[in-house]
């Protein structure tokens, strides 16, 4: 294992220390329990937005803390969900009195830990709503699995909800917005090479010299198909068509009902893409992909969208939700409307995403 690290068990703590030293104007870092939070938290009267998950996907989530995006992020060990005390302490730290939105990726670990944290925070008198992101079309059924994984759309939801919170959306409206982003965003990824979790010391999976994995998850979860290497154009077309032609997806998720004061099952359905839709196109690097290759993927994605009648009105290209040094990419398409475009364009100032300020 070749890595720029010291001891494997110190990776997350040392990364957080480095972030704190590098970006003191944007973020602060709390240790034991670990979380990253806005340097100016709590922002009074503003709904706070929190996310979190296993480390190894940087800049997500810690790199997205700052004005116009997250108020706090809770990093677990590499590829391991954080623990509820992290989310609880982060929630208490950033609550500005208007409640806290938890943006949770759909992994059993994340769901359970965030659920416990939300229960604890509510028992301490803080309003918390949670919205789950499950956008990975590589997972086809929700009946026999945990359902679709949360991937690229998470980054977009964090940016958009962060901007909305900044503009004064209340907690209810913000949760609705987040749900809207989730059902309108879909992703699929692929890997050319695996990655190695520092504590494990060996690759999470192996691929032959001429093989790739299509539909891979961000922890190296198996995808739809392992197949012979193809060209960038063919790969991009496969990913893009899987997303664009994905049929309506229906699943039941547990959400907190503030009126009933209990967790209730909510059924949601993704509306399919259709010609004429305006979209945000997000080409994400898995972390180890040469920068030069991303525009090559974007180029073909643009062509496929055009052919399918989708108009790309915004884009994002780069390593934003990564899997350590994995080579490969994922594509996310998010159907946009005027509200989402305005929120996307709003200023953001975080270590990992910045414009307008």
């Amino acid at each position, binding site marked *: 294992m070749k890595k720029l690290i010291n001891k494997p068990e110190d990776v997350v703590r040392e990364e957080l220390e480095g972030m704190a030293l590098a970006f003191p104007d944007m973020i602060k870092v709390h240790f034991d329990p670990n979380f990253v939070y806005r340097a100016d938290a709590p922002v009074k009267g503003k709904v706070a937005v929190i996310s979190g998950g296993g480390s190894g996907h940087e800049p997500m989530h810690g790199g997205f803390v700052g004005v116009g995006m997250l108020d706090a992020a809770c990093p677990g060990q590499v590829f391991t*969900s*954080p623990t509820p005390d992290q989310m609880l302490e982060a929630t208490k730290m950033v609550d500005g009195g208007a409640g806290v939105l938890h943006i949770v990726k759909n992994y059993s*670990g994340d769901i*359970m830990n965030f659920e416990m944290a939300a229960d604890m925070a509510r028992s301490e008198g803080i309003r918390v709503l949670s919205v789950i992101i499950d956008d990975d079309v590589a997972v086809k059924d929700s009946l026999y*699995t945990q359902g679709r994984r949360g991937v690229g759309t998470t980054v977009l939801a964090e940016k958009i909800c962060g901007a909305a919170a900044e503009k004064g959306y209340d907690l209810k409206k913000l949760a609705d917005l987040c749900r809207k982003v989730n059902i309108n965003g879909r992703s699929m990824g692929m890997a050319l090479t695996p990655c190695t*979790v520092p*504590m494990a010391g060996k690759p999470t999976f192996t691929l032959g010299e001429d093989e790739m994995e299509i539909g891979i998850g961000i922890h190296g979860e*198996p995808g739809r198909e392992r197949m012979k290497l193809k060209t960038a154009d063919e790969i991009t077309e496969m990913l893009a068509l899987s997303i664009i032609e994905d049929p309506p997806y229906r699943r039941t998720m547990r959400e907190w009902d503030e009126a009933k004061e209990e967790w209730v099952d909510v059924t949601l359905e993704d509306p399919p893409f259709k010609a004429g839709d305006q979209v945000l196109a997000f080409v994400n690097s898995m972390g180890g992909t040469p920068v030069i290759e991303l525009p090559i993927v974007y180029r073909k994605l643009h062509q496929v969208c055009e052919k399918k009648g989708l108009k790309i009105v915004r884009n994002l290209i780069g390593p934003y939700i990564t899997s350590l040094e994995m080579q490969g990419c994922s594509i996310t398409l998010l159907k946009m409307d005027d509200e989402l475009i305005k929120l996307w364009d709003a200023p953001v100032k975080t270590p990992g995403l910045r414009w307008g300020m």
Partner: protein
Amino acid sequence: MPITTDDVIEFLHRAADMLHENKEYLTELDSAIGDADHGINMDRGFQTILKKLPTVEDKDAGTILKTSGMALVSSVGGAGGPLYGTAFMQAGMAVAGKYELTAEDLLAALDAALKGVMMRGKSKPGEKTMIDAIDPAVTAMREALEKGATTLQALEQATIAAEQGMKNTIPMIAMKGRASYLGERSIGHQDPGATSSYLLIRLMTEMAREKQ
């Protein structure tokens, strides 16, 4: 002979040692159908329990178990943390205030643990999880006690059932947790969580046998 809080504390110490010894084994199982960390997770969690124990050594069994559950929740993460954490916390609630536990108390604690895992994991038997070891164990113990068995006899039945339940996960298709993404490919592998649950139940039985 009732179970004392000292027994509970001894169990936690020995469980920590046992899981430390089985760290590689459990991780190996998890690497086949999960993310190769279940042994590392359980070891980290139980080492954290050991650190917390001194603060509750003179407390009731409920407090000791709840504190252990909280230690798991706050140190393990992933799916294993909230599941085992909830199990221990619920078990603790079931025996809150008690300094001595009867066989019926033990059954109540195990049953509460099972319900806790099902609630937290939104899961049921047959989905290739730890529930497939715990659920038959609880049933076996209940049936044995109803038939007038001793604590040891009931635990021995529970262990046999847990082992069988654990082995039954091998041909199952996973429907919960990471393994579920493997679909058909999860068949043929023993579930790591069911294995750690079996190991914990077996340890209880071993201790009861020694105390005879």
